[in-house]
């Protein structure tokens, strides 16, 4: 009887063990996982890569950072293989990737614009949230933003200036500020401006809050009506409009102010679909990737959001539990 009992236990243990190992084989992502992401996500994504790779040592995450529009083009026009694309403006995914290269778009985090500087910037001891626009208009102050045609942070910086004109009821402020910003102070990506700040080539630069925190820069935070960080003020932000280049040289299109909302998607025909879904599951986990984002100054949406029920239906099963339908 005892022997019989032992056998049952062993058999049971064996079944459980095989069950675990089989499920582990299925769940364990391996190979290469290619992630394209906005430059402003570099630091949190690097931390997530480290965590995730230590959890799955057989997986190698390859990240490529750049202006979101450019990264989307790499996929849609060059056909560069990628599994996941995370954009600093969720609309980039809607415009350039859906429907041919992606079928859904999850909004997972937000951000806001701040004015960064260093201890060596001119008037560094004076600047605060009430006088920043007066200082930017001073002669000799070198400030810049990224290229509005290439980087969402670029046109958002211009929107902040337009909103400031409205908020401070100071007509002509926008033009006055732009007149004090020669074209050479524009860079392709906002992250590149940091090197200019740190080497003393520039006094002030417009960045996302997250970037300012991650690079330990000093920064001025602005009122919610200006900083594009509060989605409840989207209708107020809508008053700002920036003209950027269109699909062809010489053509233009309008970008309308909206809160900074990050979007992420799985690329159709992703070379490593399984690992990609598993990474997305980790990223959207409130105690996983979303927690890292929180620590690094990019307030996550907990839970993350998709705009419609129809889109939620298109998500891989594991991800459905991670999101809610909210516009």
């Amino acid at each position, binding site marked *: 009887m005892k022997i019989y009992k032992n056998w049952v236990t062993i058999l049971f243990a064996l079944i459980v063990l095989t069950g675990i190992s089989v499920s582990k084989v299925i769940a364990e992502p391996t190979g290469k996982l290619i992630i394209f992401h906005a430059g402003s996500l570099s630091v949190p994504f690097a931390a997530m890569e480290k965590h995730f790779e230590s959890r799955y040592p057989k997986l190698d995450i390859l990240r490529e950072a750049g202006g979101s*529009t450019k990264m989307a083009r790499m996929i849609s026009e060059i056909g560069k293989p990628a599994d996941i694309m995370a954009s600093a403006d969720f609309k980039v995914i809607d415009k350039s990737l859906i429907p041919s290269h992606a079928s859904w778009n999850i909004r997972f985090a937000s951000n806001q614009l701040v004015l960064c500087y260093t201890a060596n910037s001119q008037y560094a001891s004076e600047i605060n949230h009430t006088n920043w626009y007066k200082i930017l208009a001073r002669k000799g102050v070198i400030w810049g933003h990224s290229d509005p045609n*290439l980087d969402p942070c670029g046109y958002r910086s211009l929107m902040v200036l337009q909103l400031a004109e409205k908020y401070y009821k100071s007509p002509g402020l926008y033009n006055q500020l732009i007149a004090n910003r020669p*074209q*050479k102070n524009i860079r*392709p990506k906002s992250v590149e401006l940091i090197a*200019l700040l*740190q*080497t003393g080539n520039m006094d002030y630069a417009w960045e996302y809050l997250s970037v300012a925190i991650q690079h330990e820069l000093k920064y001025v935070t602005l009122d919610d009506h200006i900083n594009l960080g509060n989605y409840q003020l989207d209708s107020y932000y809508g008053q700002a409009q920036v003209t950027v*280049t269109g699909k062809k*040289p010489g053509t233009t299109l309008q970008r309308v102010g909206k809160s900074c909302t990050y979007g992420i998607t799985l690329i159709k025909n992703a070379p490593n679909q399984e690992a990609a879904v598993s990474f997305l599951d980790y990223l959207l986990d409130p105690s996983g990737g979303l927690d890292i984002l929180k620590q690094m100054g990019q307030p996550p949406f907990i839970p993350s959001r998709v705009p419609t029920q129809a889109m939620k239906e298109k998500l891989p099963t594991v991800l459905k539990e991670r999101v809610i339908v909210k516009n």
Partner: protein
Amino acid sequence: MKSHSDPFLIMSIGSCVVVSLFILVPLIQMMITPSWELLTESIFDPDIQKAIWLSIYSSGLAAIISFIIGTPFAYLLARKSFFGKQFVEGIIDLPIMIPHPVIGIAILGIVGKDHWLGSLLHKLGVQMMGTVSGIVVVLTFVGMPFYINAVKNGFESIPVRLENVSRSLGASFSRTFFQITLPLAWRSIMVGIIMCSARAISEFGAIVVVAYHPMNAPVLIYERFTAFGLKYSQPIAVLLIFVCLILFIGLRLVSKKNSAL
């Protein structure tokens, strides 16, 4: 007859074909992709004209600067052996090895107001960030090693006894250099100039860090690619390749002619 079927000869011809195709196939593909319309549109696009012209003259300036300050140095390296010579030669090769954006960052690091040199330049009214001066500094930095190495080899191939004869006949050190050595090294100097400006014209990574505006051709190609996609960046690349081809073939012909004299 036998030599025609030598395996090494066949291998050499084979590798010649492989290498040529390796270089030409992607380039030809890119050159034939843009439509004729887009190409002509691009030729008359003032932004493109400006960018290509900026690329050419800033690279030319880098080559001229290398010629002026690099030639005496190359001569020293070719003729004299001194303590630490290999170390100095190593330093010259550094810009070839350093990743390009790092070069840009390094240069920005000394021209900013936080550095004494940068603050001095600012006081003198010289700005490097986003200016043609900045571009030329970067291009000289990356092009100089190619110039110095080519010219050093040129000087080394000139027999020392010719210089010794000149000096024994009473010519001074500098007269010997300008009347004997320099004319004999003319061809390698031309090769050096071609190498240096070719390297400079192709530079992107360091330039985009130091000066996004004003845009030279590689930066404009990048900007057009990111903003409008492949279709509108290719024609600029085609034009740049075409202009460079003419320029460099021209320079090579000139240097050949001179060496024949």
